[in-house]
C-alpha cells in the first residue's frame, strides 16, 4: 500500500508542475496588472511597488522564485488583500468551504446511494421511474437556480431558515447552502448507483446467493460492494471540488469561503491568489484521488493485487 501511495505521488508531480507552470505563464501573459487602479499611480510609486513584489525581474526568474517559495509551503502575499498572505486567506476561508463541502458530500452520498439502490432493486417499477425523473431534474437544474429558489421559499416565504450569512457556522445557516451543493451530486450518484447495481444484480453469483436462500440484507451487502466501485472512482474529483468551495453558492449565500477567490483574484490580477487557488485545487484533486483509489482497493481485491 505504501508503494502504491509513493508511486501515485510520484506520478502526480509532473501534473502538478504542469498546472503551476501553465497558470503562472497564462496569468502573466494577460494584459493588465495588479496595481492598475482607476487613477493611475505615479510612475515612481509603481516602480517601487513592482520592485517590492519582485515583478520587475525577468519572468523566468520570478517563476523560479515562486517554485522555491512553493516548496517551502509559502504561497506569497496577496496583491489585493494587502497585509494578508494567501496562506492567511486560505486559513480563514478553507474551514468554511471544507465544512460545507464535507457535509454536502456526506449528504449527496447518503441520498444518492439510498435512492440509487432503491431504483435498482425495483427496475422498471414506480420507484425506479420516480428516482430517474428526480435524478434527471437534479442534474439539469443548476445551483444558481436552486440557490435563489431555496432562499425565496425557505428563507423569505416560509421564514424557516436564514437566507444567507455564515454566523460562525450556525447549523441553521448551513442547511440551504449544503442542500444546494449536494443535490446535483446526489442525482449523479443515484444514477451511477442504479446503473452499476443493476448490472451486478443480474450476475450469476447474486443468483446463486438468492438460490441459496440468503437474506435480502446479506445479498445487498455483497452486491453493493461491487456496485460501489464506479461510484468511488468519481469521488476523488467530486470531493476535491466540494472541499474547495463553490463560487456560485458562496456568492449567493454570502459565505466567507475560498470559492470566490479564484474569480475575484483573476479579475483583480491578484497573481499570487490565483496561483494559490490553482495549487490548492490541484493538490486536493491529487489527494482525494489517492484516497478514492485506496478505498477502491479495499473494496476490490483485484485492484490490490495489480497494485
Amino acid at each position, binding site marked *: 500500500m505504501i508503494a502504491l501511495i509513493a508511486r501515485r505521488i510520484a506520478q502526480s508531480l509532473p501534473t502538478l508542475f504542469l498546472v503551476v507552470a501553465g497558470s503562472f505563464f497564462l496569468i502573466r501573459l494577460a494584459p493588465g496588472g495588479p496595481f492598475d487602479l482607476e487613477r493611475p499611480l505615479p510612475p515612481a510609486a509603481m516602480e517601487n511597488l513592482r520592485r517590492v513584489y519582485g515583478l520587475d525581474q525577468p519572468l523566468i526568474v520570478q517563476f523560479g522564485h515562486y517554485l522555491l517559495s512553493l516548496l517551502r509551503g509559502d504561497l506569497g502575499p496577496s496583491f489585493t488583500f494587502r497585509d494578508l498572505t494567501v496562506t492567511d486567506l486560505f486559513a480563514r476561508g478553507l474551514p468554511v468551504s471544507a465544512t460545507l463541502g464535507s457535509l454536502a458530500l456526506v449528504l449527496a452520498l447518503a441520498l444518492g446511494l439510498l435512492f440509487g439502490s432503491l431504483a435498482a432493486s425495483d427496475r422498471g417499477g414506480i420507484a425506479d421511474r420516480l428516482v430517474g425523473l428526480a435524478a434527471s431534474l437534479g442534474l439539469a437544474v*443548476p445551483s444558481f437556480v436552486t440557490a435563489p429558489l431555496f432562499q425565496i421559499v425557505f428563507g423569505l416565504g416560509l421564514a424557516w431558515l436564514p437566507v444567507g450569512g455564515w454566523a460562525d457556522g450556525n447549523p441553521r445557516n448551513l442547511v440551504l447552502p449544503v442542500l444546494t451543493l449536494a443535490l446535483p451530486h446526489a442525482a449523479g450518484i443515484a444514477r451511477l448507483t442504479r446503473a452499476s447495481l443493476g448490472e451486478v444484480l443480474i450476475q450469476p453469483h447474486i443468483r446463486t446467493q438468492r438460490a441459496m436462500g440468503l437474506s435480502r440484507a446479506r445479498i445487498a451487502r455483497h452486491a453493493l460492494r461491487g456496485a460501489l466501485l464506479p461510484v468511488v472512482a468519481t469521488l476523488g474529483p467530486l470531493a476535491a471540488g466540494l472541499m474547495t468551495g463553490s463560487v456560485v453558492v458562496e456568492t449567493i449565500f454570502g459565505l466567507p469561503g475560498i470559492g470566490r477567490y479564484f474569480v475575484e483574484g483573476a479579475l483583480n490580477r491578484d497573481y499570487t491568489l490565483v496561483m494559490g487557488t490553482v495549487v490548492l485545487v490541484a493538490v486536493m484533486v491529487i489527494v482525494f484521488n489517492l484516497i478514492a483509489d485506496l478505498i477502491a482497493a479495499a473494496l476490490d481485491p483485484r485492484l490490490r493485487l495489480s497494485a
Partner: protein
Amino acid sequence: MSAALAGLARRRLARDRPALAALASLVLIALACLIGPLLTGHPPERIYPDVVRVAPGLAAHPRPDEVRPALQRLAFRMRVSLEEVVQDGDRVRLTLTAQKPIDLRAFRLLPRSGLFGAAAVRERSADGRRLVAEVPIRKRIFLLGTDALGRDLLSRCLAAGQVSLLIGLTAALAALLIGVAYGAVSGMAGGRVDALMMRLLDILYALPFVFFVIMLLVFFRAGLWLVLVAVAAVEWLDMARIVRTQTLSLKGRDFVRAAYALGLSTESVIARHVVPNTLGPIIAAATLLVPRVILLESFLSFLGLGVQEPETSWGVLIAEGSRAIESAPWMLAAPAGFLVVTLVALNRLGDGLGEALDPRL
C-alpha cells in the same frame, strides 16, 4: 455504423416513449427559438419603458389603470402637462397644456413608447399652448411578462435559446471532432504511442480546466467564440477515451484485417472502417455532451464571464432573474424553465440513444 444497427436502433428508439417525447420537445424548443422571436410581436431588444416588470399572463397592456401613469411619464418627457385623459375603448383623448406653444414634434415620443400610436390633433388653441389630441392605444401581450427594462421575456428567452443551443451544438461538435480523432489515432497506433497519448490524457484530466477557461475569459475579454473554443477544449477528453476503447475492440476484427490485407493505408482504415463502426456510442456520448456544454456556458455567463450584452443566453437571463427574484420571480423562472426542460430532454434522449445504439444488446 452499419445499416442493420441503424435500423435496429430506430426501431428500439421508436419504442422508447420518454426518449421520443424528449426528441419532440427538443425539436419544438429549437423551432421556437429559431422562428419564435418573429412571431411574438416583440423584437427581443425592444424596450417598453412603461411596462416594466409586468407579470406573465394573457392580459393586454397597457391595462386601463396603466394608461394614465404611462401618459403622465410621456407628458413629462414631452414637457407638457396632462390636463385631462378620456379613455374610449382603444383610443384615448388627451387635453394638454404647456407654458410655451406645444411643439408637435414631441408627439413622436408617443409611438416610440410602443404602447400608443401616432397622435391626431383635434383642437388647438390660438396661442398653441393648449391642445386636444386623439391617440390610439396599441395593446401588447407579454405571455411571460417583461424584465426590469421592459423587454418582452418570451422573446428574450427565445433569442437567448438561439445562442445557448448554438454554443451547445457547436462546442459539442468541436469536442466530438477532436475527441474522435485523438481516440481513434491512439487506439489504432497502439503500443508506445497509445501509452504516451493516454498518459497525456490522464494529465489533462487532472488539470483544473474550468480554472483555465475562467482565466482565458477574464484575461482576454470574453466573446462568443472564445467561450465556444474554451468549452470545447475542456470537454473532448471523455470522447477520446470512449473512441479509443471502441477502436481497440475493433482493431483485431476480421473486417479491419481484411481492409489492411487489401492494401488500405492506416488513415483510410481509420476513416472508412473504424470510425463508422464506433459511431453508435459516439452519437450517444455527443448527445450527452450538449447539455453539459450548455450548463457550463450558463455557469460562465452567470458569473458574467460568458456571453456579453447585448448578446444574451439563458445563463445571462438567469443571472438577471436571480438578482430580481423578490420583485419579479418570473424573470428567473422563465429562462430557468427553458434551460431545465432542454437539459432534461437532451439527457433523456442521450440515454435513449445510448441504449438503442448499444451493439451488445
